[in-house]
């Protein structure tokens, strides 16, 4: 049976991809952000996951309002990175793991999650930037695990509740642990933390609320399910709803986790950036 090694959170801001391209890791603006990653790299080198479940939110590339799924799971042999409208060069496709994808989908539909399965899917910066952060040079990194992308809706309200997101993670963890293959899986929860791009409140960041989320996501994620979706918009900012990805990741890890590293920095682009590595009890 497969083993869930742990979970990693990170912001997935497009500017990060740009900074990696230009080698700005030691630039004064970027250094406090990239300082969050060496410990993650060491952990990944040590554990060498076979699969990565990349939980992100599409930002208007893979899905449009004509068909907006609450929860979508990729089930393709590979995932294309396409032009998101800014003319950035696309990367080579990321290798998929369709057998694992279908195992997850079978298990979660049986457990009453109403999945949209995607046998073809273009993935945007929400998926790609974390892959580049954790496996430098991705997809051209020999250690890159095969991927299952999972996207949750944060574009169109109603978005899923924090409780549903955590429960999604629990069912995902159950599915992964029942996959009949000796394999190691790492789960990414990407996006956040507090930020708002639109409206007169653009630029809103909420350090206190982010710290509250960082504390509780480690030790008491159930506490966070008391936050209503409108409170999340209010306190994390309109795009801070991406914190749902962290809840989904966290649910899959189980109760017993150890915090290996944490980083928090304001601002990267318009966003408070949070990085967290949680290891599951063996």
């Amino acid at each position, binding site marked *: 049976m497969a083993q869930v090694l742990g979970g990693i959170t990170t912001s997935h801001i497009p500017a990060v991809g740009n900074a990696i391209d230009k080698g700005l890791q030691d630039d004064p603006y970027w250094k406090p952000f990239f300082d969050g990653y060496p410990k993650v790299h060491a952990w990944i080198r040590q554990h060498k996951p076979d699969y990565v479940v990349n939980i992100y939110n599409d*930002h*208007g*590339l893979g899905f*449009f*309002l004509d068909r907006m799924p609450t929860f979508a799971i990729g089930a393709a042999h590979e995932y294309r990175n*396409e*032009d*998101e*409208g*800014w*003319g950035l060069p696309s990367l080579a496709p990321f290798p998929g793991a369709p057998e694992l994808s279908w195992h997850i989908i079978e298990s979660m539909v049986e457990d009453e999650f109403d999945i949209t399965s995607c046998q073809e899917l273009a993935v945007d910066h929400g998926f790609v930037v974390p892959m580049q952060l954790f496996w430098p040079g991705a997809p051209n990194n020999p250690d890159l695990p095969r991927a299952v992308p999972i996207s949750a809706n944060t*574009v*169109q*309200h*109603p978005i899923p509740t924090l409780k549903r997101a955590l429960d999604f993670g629990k069912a995902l963890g159950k599915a992964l642990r029942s996959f009949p293959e000796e394999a190691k899986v790492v789960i990414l929860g990407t996006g956040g933390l507090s930020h*708002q*791009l*639109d*409206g*007169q*409140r*653009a*630029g*809103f*960041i909420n*350090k206190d609320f982010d710290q509250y989320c960082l504390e509780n996501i480690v030790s008491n994620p159930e506490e966070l399910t008391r936050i*209503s*979706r*409108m*409170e999340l*918009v*209010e306190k994390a900012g*309109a*795009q801070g709803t991406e914190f749902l990805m962290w809840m989904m990741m966290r649910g899959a890890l189980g109760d017993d986790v150890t915090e290996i590293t944490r980083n928090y*920095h*304001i*601002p990267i*682009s*318009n966003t*408070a950036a949070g990085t967290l590595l949680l290891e599951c009890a063996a």
Partner: protein
Amino acid sequence: MESHSHDYHIDIPGTTVFDGRMAMKGYALNKMCYDFNRAENREAFKADPEGWMEKYGLRDAQRQAIRDNDILAMIEEGGNIYYLAKLAGIFKLSVQDVGGLQTGRTTEEFKQFLASQA
């Protein structure tokens, strides 16, 4: 517990919740912007913005907001920031430029405002 109606949203100053009501209003605008994922559509818009807006059936207030580069008006008209970001890309506006435009700050002032929250 949240109530069962799509008027349950609390009022959050300076924030428009992109719910069904806004989506109904903004569908044509958002569809045009979503299609800017393709370079050929971006070029077609740049070559003939009025014709391209006509093709997607944008209403007058949406067209005027685009002519005026008025982001707040685009949002008022049902534009969703994730799709509008692709339109902003055509005008080479960064998210900090867009933030400044919406909050009456220069881009530099907006960046300072962000950093001040650390």
